[in-house]
C-alpha cells in the first residue's frame, strides 16, 4: 500500500500522469480527426470537386485535432490565456526564424481563397507543366506529363505567373509557317483554310486566323491560328503541321530554311576542292 502511494506521489510530483494523459489525448485527437474527416468525405463526396474534398477533409481534421491539442495543453496545466499571450511574442520570434515557411503558409491560404486553379487542373509555372495533385499549406504538388513529382512552394506560386491550361473548353493552336518569297500568299491562304476546313478537329467557329507576321531572313513568316477542343489540342496541332507539309509538298510550295554561304574572305585563296574517285569531296586546305 505504502509503495503504491509512493508511486502515485512520485507520478504527481513529476507530472508523468498528466503527460501520459496529454499524449493519450493527442493520439486520440489524431485518430478521431482522421476517422471523422474520412467519414465526412465518404458521406458527402458526391457532387464535390477533388479540390473541395481536400479542403473539407483537412479543415475537419485540423479542427478536431486542434481541440484535442488544446485539451492536452490544459491537461498539462498550461494556462491558455497566458499561453495565447506568450504565443504573441512567440509568433514574432517564430516569424523571424521561419520567414519562408510562414510566407508559404500565408501564400497557401491566399491560394485556397483565390483558387486560380484546383486539383486535377493542368498548370504551367515557370518551365514546369503538370497536373495539380494537391494544394497544401506550404506547397503545391504537380505531376508532370513525364510522370515526375514536382513540389512548388506556395510563395513561388503567388509571386510568379501561373498559367492554367484547363480553365476553358477550347484552345488556340498557333502554327508558325514560313513560305518562300516567290510564293503566292493568296494561294497559300486558300490552301491552309481548305486544310483546316477538312480537319474535323479544327473548329469552324471561332474561324481560323491567317496573319502575316513579317518578312523574315529567308521566308515570309505566317501565323496560322486554329481553334480546337482542349483535349484535342495536341492532336490537331500535330495533324495540321503534318498536313501543311504534305499539302505544300503536293502543291510545290517551298518551305525555305536558312542557307549558310561559306566565304573564305578576300585575303585568302578560294577553298580548294579535290575530286576523289570521281566523287566530289570538299576538303579544306590546312
Amino acid at each position, binding site marked *: 500500500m505504502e509503495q503504491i502511494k509512493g508511486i502515485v506521489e512520485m507520478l504527481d510530483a513529476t507530472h508523468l500522469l498528466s503527460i501520459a494523459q496529454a499524449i493519450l489525448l493527442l493520439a486520440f485527437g489524431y485518430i478521431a480527426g482522421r476517422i471523422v474527416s474520412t467519414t465526412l468525405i465518404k458521406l458527402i463526396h458526391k457532387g464535390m470537386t477533388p479540390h473541395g474534398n481536400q479542403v473539407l477533409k483537412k479543415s475537419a481534421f485540423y479542427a478536431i485535432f486542434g481541440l484535442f491539442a488544446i485539451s492536452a495543453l490544459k491537461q498539462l496545466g498550461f494556462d491558455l490565456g497566458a499561453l495565447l499571450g506568450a504565443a504573441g511574442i512567440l509568433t514574432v520570434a517564430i516569424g523571424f526564424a521561419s520567414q519562408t515557411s510562414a510566407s508559404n503558409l500565408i501564400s497557401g491560404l491566399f491560394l485556397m481563397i483565390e483558387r486560380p486553379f484546383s486539383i486535377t487542373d493542368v498548370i504551367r509555372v515557370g518551365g514546369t507543366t503538370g497536373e495539380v495533385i494537391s494544394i497544401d499549406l506550404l506547397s503545391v504538388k504537380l505531376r508532370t506529363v513525364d510522370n515526375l513529382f514536382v513540389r512548388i512552394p506556395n510563395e513561388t506560386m503567388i509571386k510568379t505567373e501561373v498559367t492554367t491550361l484547363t480553365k476553358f473548353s477550347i484552345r488556340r493552336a498557333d502554327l508558325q509557317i514560313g513560305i518562300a518569297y516567290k510564293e503566292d500568299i493568296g494561294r497559300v491562304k486558300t490552301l491552309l483554310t481548305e486544310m483546316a476546313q477538312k480537319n474535323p*478537329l479544327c*473548329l*469552324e467557329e471561332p474561324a481560323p486566323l491567317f496573319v502575316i507576321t513579317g518578312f523574315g531572313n529567308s521566308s515570309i513568316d505566317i501565323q496560322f491560328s486554329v*481553334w*480546337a*477542343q482542349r483535349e*484535342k489540342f495536341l492532336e490537331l496541332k500535330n495533324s495540321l503541321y503534318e498536313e501543311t507539309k504534305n499539302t505544300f509538298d503536293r502543291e510545290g510550295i517551298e518551305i525555305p530554311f536558312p542557307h549558310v554561304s561559306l566565304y573564305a574572305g578576300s585575303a585568302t585563296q578560294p577553298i580548294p576542292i579535290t575530286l576523289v574517285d570521281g566523287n566530289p569531296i570538299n576538303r579544306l586546305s590546312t
Partner: protein
Amino acid sequence: MSDKEPWWGDFPLAEQQSMHWSIGERKLAIQRQASEWNTWNVETETENADTLVRTDDADQLIPDHALLGRHLQATTAASLRVIPALADRSIVTRPKVPLRLLGGEHTRIYVSTPLWFKALTLPGNLCLLDVPFWRPSDSWFGPSTREGEMCYAKYTEARLHKELLVRRPHRAITPILVHNKQQDALLIERLNVPVPLLSLYQDTHHGLWTNAIKVTREEDDDLTELLLEKQAPAEADGATLVAGPRIINDNHRLIRSLGSLFA
C-alpha cells in the same frame, strides 16, 4: 437490299455471319461469333451521295486495320438491332448566304443533319457501335471563347420547300419554324439545332425526319422561345418513331436568349 427496305431494323445473324453497310467506299461491318461481336469501320474523307447498301455475304473483304472493336459476351444472341441516331451534340448549321426574316413574318426552314450508325445487341440493347457516317467538324457556339458549348458545324442549303430537299439515307431532316414577332428583320447567320433532344421518325419512303422545332422571337424582348414539337412533322407521311432522343428532356418548351440560337 432493295430501295424499299430501310438500312435499320432488327436483323437475324447466325454465328460467323457478318453484315455490311456501305455508301460507296464508306463501310461498316458487324460479325457475330460464339462469344464476341467484331465491328469494322472504314472511313472516307469526303461525304458521297451514293446509295446505302446492306449486304450479308461473308465474301466482302475488310482490311484488318479497320477493325474497330471486339465486344465480348458470354453467349451472343442471334439477332442484332441497328438504328439511326442523331448527333451527340448540338449542330450549328450555317446557310451559305445569311437569311433575313422580315419583321412580323414566319417561315419554315428545312435543315438536314448527319446521322450516326448505332448497333445494339438483342435482347439487352447493349451498344456495340455508335459512329457517324461522316463526322461533322467540331465547332464552338457561344458569346465568347469562355462561355459556350461544343457543337458540330454543318453548312446547309436551308431549303424552304420540301420538294427541293435532297434525300440521303445518312441524313435526317429537321423542319424549323421561325416566327419573328418584332418589327425589325431577324438575321439568321447560324442556327443551333439541339439534335440530342430530338426524336427520329421515318416516313413511308423510309426518309428520316426529326420532330419540328418552333422558334419564336418575342415582340418585346430579345428572348426566344424554343418549342420542340412532341409528334412527327406534318411533312413525314405515315410517320413512325425510329429512335427516341439521346437526352430525355420532359420540358419541351425552352427559353433561350436570342444569342444562343442565332448569331
